[in-house]
């Protein structure tokens, strides 16, 4: 392993979207990059819904549509509020989404990450799979100067280490670069892959060609816990899953598997999955703490990108795009410092945070900084009372049963007031609006 004698310009830990974006951009600019991934192949450890937002990837690989393994482009979004037997909600479908360069696609992460990783290698980075980084190597001043792995006996050195190790990033947490993730700022999601012939999917969801539908659901499906369910159409399969905040799970004693089973058997979901064959069951954490949970992002010789930095916008269910964008911005920072022959000091690397502050990443996370706490503190109302009230209001309104409409309106209003005081409801609405702005 003579090639490891000379320090690399950069080592990237992890080959998810953040690490791949970062390694690709640096290698393309001619830096000497080593990327280390613990899985047998990139993607073998990774789980996502999964919706890919084109914009973030387009800024890295503009022609990705010609070669990346994409499933369907999304033309319809359904947002469902569910109680035990019903759903109400909002659907938005537009032929405008059948554009030449669609904006959102469904993907399968194991296949997508493998493709992205092949691009990283094409760009000239050295990628080691089946290798787990076990610790960071520091010099006497505390500056990170390399990593140790479970394969190479001696440490591998680099000018800078980019931690793209995901939400469960042990390396950064154990080295004390950031606090341990807390159970109330992460969600545990379980997911299954259900296979069906593509014609069946197209008929069931009213689709043709590569058009796709995504459903996001909330309500009593999470049994009063803060969380959401989802169902996405792929080419020949459906991804279905549900996730809740870990500390909520720990309190309720509902098993994640049972929660998913109940969601799959909900009368609104079951017919969509009928006769499908399940081929995989997966679980993964999602950072949900938002802006307030973002840890220190840089220090002497190191940068954090993606989920390891808690970069997820839970309100809009965006994560992989923030991962790619933070990876790209970290790469731009390192490339510019390397070109100027500047040291990877804490002060110089702080440039990354400055650049992030100007991007949509920080602006969006800041906008919703109050939402995680609001939902968590009022979970009984948002994930129990309101979905039930809305369902019963809808039923009162739509049933034609000889009762006049004025009496129906009064009954609906009374039901709302009796279940949750007017002040309580107005307070929640007010807090929601404030947190949203």
């Amino acid at each position, binding site marked *: 392993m003579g090639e490891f004698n000379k320090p690399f310009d950069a080592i990237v830990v992890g080959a998810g979207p953040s690490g791949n974006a970062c390694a690709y951009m640096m290698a393309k600019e001619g830096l000497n990059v080593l990327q280390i991934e*613990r*899985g*047998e192949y990139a*993607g*073998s*450890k*990774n*789980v*996502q819904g*999964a919706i890919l937002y084109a914009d973030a990837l387009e800024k890295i690989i503009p022609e990705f549509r010609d070669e990346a393994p994409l499933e369907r482009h999304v033309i319809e979004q359904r947002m469902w509020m569910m109680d035990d037997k019903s759903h109400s909600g909002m659907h938005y479908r537009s032929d405008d989404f059948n554009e030449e360069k669609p904006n959102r696609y469904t993907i*399968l*992460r*194991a*296949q997508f*990450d493998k493709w992205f990783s092949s691009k990283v290698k094409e760009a000239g980075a050295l990628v080691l*799979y*089946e*290798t*787990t980084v076990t610790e960071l190597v520091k010099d006497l001043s505390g500056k990170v100067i390399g990593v140790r*792995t*479970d*394969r190479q006996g001696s440490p591998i050195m680099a000018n800078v280490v980019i931690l793209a190790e995901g*939400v*469960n990033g*042990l390396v950064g947490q154990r080295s004390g670069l950031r606090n*341990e*993730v*807390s*159970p109330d700022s*992460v969600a*545990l999601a*379980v997911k*299954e*892959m259900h296979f069906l012939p593509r014609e069946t999917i197209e008929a069931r969801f009213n689709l043709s060609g590569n058009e796709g539908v995504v459903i996001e659901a909330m309500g009593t499906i999470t*049994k009063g816990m803060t969380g959401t369910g989802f169902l996405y159409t792929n080419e020949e*399969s459906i991804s279905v899953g549900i996730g809740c905040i*870990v500390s909520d*799970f*720990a309190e*309720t*004693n*509902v*098993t*994640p*598997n*049972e*929660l998913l*089973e*109940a969601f799959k058997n909900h009368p609104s979901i079951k017919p969509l999955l009928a006769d499908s064959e*399940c*081929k*995989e*069951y*997966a*679980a*993964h*954490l999602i950072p949900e703490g938002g802006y307030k949970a973002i840890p220190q992002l840089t220090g002497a010789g190191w940068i954090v990108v993606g989920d390891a930095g808690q970069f997820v916008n839970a309100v809009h269910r965006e994560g992989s795009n923030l991962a790619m964008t933070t990876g790209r911005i970290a790469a731009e920072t390192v490339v510019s410092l390397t070109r100027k022959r500047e040291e990877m000091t804490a002060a110089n690397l702080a440039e990354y945070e400055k650049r992030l502050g100007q991007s949509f990443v920080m602006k969006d996370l800041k906008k919703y900084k109050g939402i995680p706490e609001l939902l968590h503190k009022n979970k009984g109302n948002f994930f129990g009372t309101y979905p039930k009230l809305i369902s019963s209001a809808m039923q009162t309104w739509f049933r034609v049963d000889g009762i006049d409409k004025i009496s129906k309106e009064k009954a609906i209003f009374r039901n709302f007031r009796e279940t949750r005081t007017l002040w309580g409801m107005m307070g929640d609405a007010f807090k929601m609006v404030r947190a949203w702005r």
Partner: protein
Amino acid sequence: MSDVMAAPRAKVEEKLFQNRYLVDAGRPHIKVKPHTTPSASLMSMVTLCPAGCYSQTEGGQVEVAADGCLECGTCRIVTRKTGEVEWNYPRGGFGVLYKFG
């Protein structure tokens, strides 16, 4: 909660059969430290682990069999304060291998 609780435990094991794993025989990546009485956090893993890896013995202790582990990290986070679980990633290349993710 009886409706959701009705799904039998065995079902999760059936689901795990569909997954691919490369088990690092004799080198489990998760261990529960010896104890007499488990903390509430450790006890909660019996229901919380999405792969059903945790169970309670007749003596009341909690044990883990990590062969079907999905490497989500939940047990590490939940028991971090009590320190009852020793958690590492499997050696490079071992563990769960998602085909779709």
